[in-house]
């Protein structure tokens, strides 16, 4: 019997998710022994034509990382969906939009204007912008077009499973691969990670006061962080109460607060709203003036609570009343 075929693809991402595959270290040999990797643009020389030549559903499982921003990413997501029995959204960008999703606070026009004209390091007197088609003497050159907003993978094609994290913890990838190989997959749509909030796994949980009451929020560089005490108790904005575990508290062990990369636990559909709710409820302010002062300690609520999930949120992108980005 031939080995099951596996593909990896990347869209709008940084490459960190590819690094997770490399971080399998010697376990990657077990994976390679058990499966055939048939497509992995980051590391192996297969082309789009090779995938197009396959029969529909020929690939057993494809791990797609990265958000969807361009026409090319959309086409590739659709192609991989057609050729694969299972599509796994791999990593925060693919699952909830990730860091690239923060671009949904701006219109496409605002982004192009800043990047190709406005930014201080840009010299572009003719205002040249990338074109989807350019005629040169050798023929016509083409480029993918930029979509209006950053989308998650499941806002583009149906997705079977999700692996959260920025980047996803290696053990979640190992767990997913083993589940596929052993045919022990949970119901479709499941997030392949523990369904408990990070606080539950936190090594500092014993130092979390019964009644947390945060007088003011600090940013990590503003205080000396005690390495053994609950970060919320120290006034750091830690998203542990509202974020899925599965990371073995990697950031906490590095003495930094959780920024929410694994997204929400099951049943929560807007991670930012849940994190905002948890954070606000822990504040000490008991009147309106103190509340305003407390919240001044969170200068960028969207960037704080939706750092990895703006496209998957209920609002999806910034609202512009006049629709042309001037607002």
């Amino acid at each position, binding site marked *: 019997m031939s080995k099951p075929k596996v593909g990896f693809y990347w869209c709008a991402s940084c490459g960190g998710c590819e690094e997770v595959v490399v971080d399998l270290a010697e376990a990657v040999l077990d994976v390679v022994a058990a499966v055939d990797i048939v497509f992995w643009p980051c590391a192996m020389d297969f082309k789009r034509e090779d995938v197009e030549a396959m029969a529909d559903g020929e690939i057993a499982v494809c791990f797609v990382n990265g958000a969807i921003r361009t026409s090319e990413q959309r086409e590739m997501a659709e192609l991989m969906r057609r050729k694969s029995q299972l599509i796994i959204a791999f990593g925060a960008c693919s699952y909830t939009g990730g860091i690239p999703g923060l671009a949904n606070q701006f219109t496409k026009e605002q982004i192009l204007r800043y990047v190709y004209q406005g930014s201080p390091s840009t010299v572009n007197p003719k205002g040249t912008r990338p074109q989807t088609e350019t005629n040169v003497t050798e023929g016509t050159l083409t480029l993918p077009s930029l979509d209006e907003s950053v989308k*998650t993978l499941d806002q583009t094609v*149906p997705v079977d499973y999700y692996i959260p994290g920025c980047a996803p913890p290696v053990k979640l990838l190992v767990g997913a691969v083993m589940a596929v190989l052993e045919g022990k997959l949970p119901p479709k749509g499941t997030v392949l990670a523990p369904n408990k909030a990070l606080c539950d796994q936190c090594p500092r949980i014993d130092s979390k006061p019964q009644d947390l009451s945060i007088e003011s929020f600090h940013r990590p560089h503003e205080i000396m962080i005690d390495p053994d005490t609950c970060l919320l108790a120290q006034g750091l904005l830690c998203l542990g109460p509202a974020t899925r575990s599965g990371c073995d508290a990697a950031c906490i062990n590095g003495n930094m607060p959780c920024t929410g990369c694994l997204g929400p636990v099951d049943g929560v559909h807007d991670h930012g709203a*849940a994190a905002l709710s948890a954070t606000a409820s822990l504040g000490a302010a*008991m009147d309106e003036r103190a509340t305003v002062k*407390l919240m001044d300690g969170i200068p960028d*609520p*969207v960037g704080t609570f939706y750092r990895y999930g703006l496209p998957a949120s209920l609002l999806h992108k910034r*609202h512009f009343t006049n629709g042309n980005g001037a607002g």
Partner: protein
Amino acid sequence: MFDPNFEPRIVAFFCNWCTYTASDLAGTSRMTYAPNTRVIRLMCSGRLNPQFVLAAFRQGADGVLIGGCHPGDCHYQEGNYKTMRRVELLKRMVEQMGIEPQRLRLEWIAASEGDKVQRVTNEMVEQIKQLGPLNLDAIPQPEAGEQLEAVAAAEGVA
């Protein structure tokens, strides 16, 4: 542009012990006020998950009004204080996302203040008429509808 025929849709979350009772009082006292609110009773304003507010905007609300007991009067001691902090932070968040913070309003209305329900509702309807309809762009399919149903199902408020 101002449209005189625009009738705002306002979702109102009122707490059982104070504001909902006040709106009952407004009704039994035969006070008339703008019919633009759809009132949802919560046991406490502290039950207001910020997801409810965003889901309301997502599903076509032009404004969200939240009514709770005055500070110090909460039936559950401190639910309204949590709401005060959540709404302050949520207002800042929605403003960053291009939604005018005036579309989100928190008021303390005691059970005896039927007239305040009347005044606040009328004021808010007037203010939202000035702002105009919200009309959020749709979320890319296929997930939008399922996402909303799932919020309702998970929260048991279908």
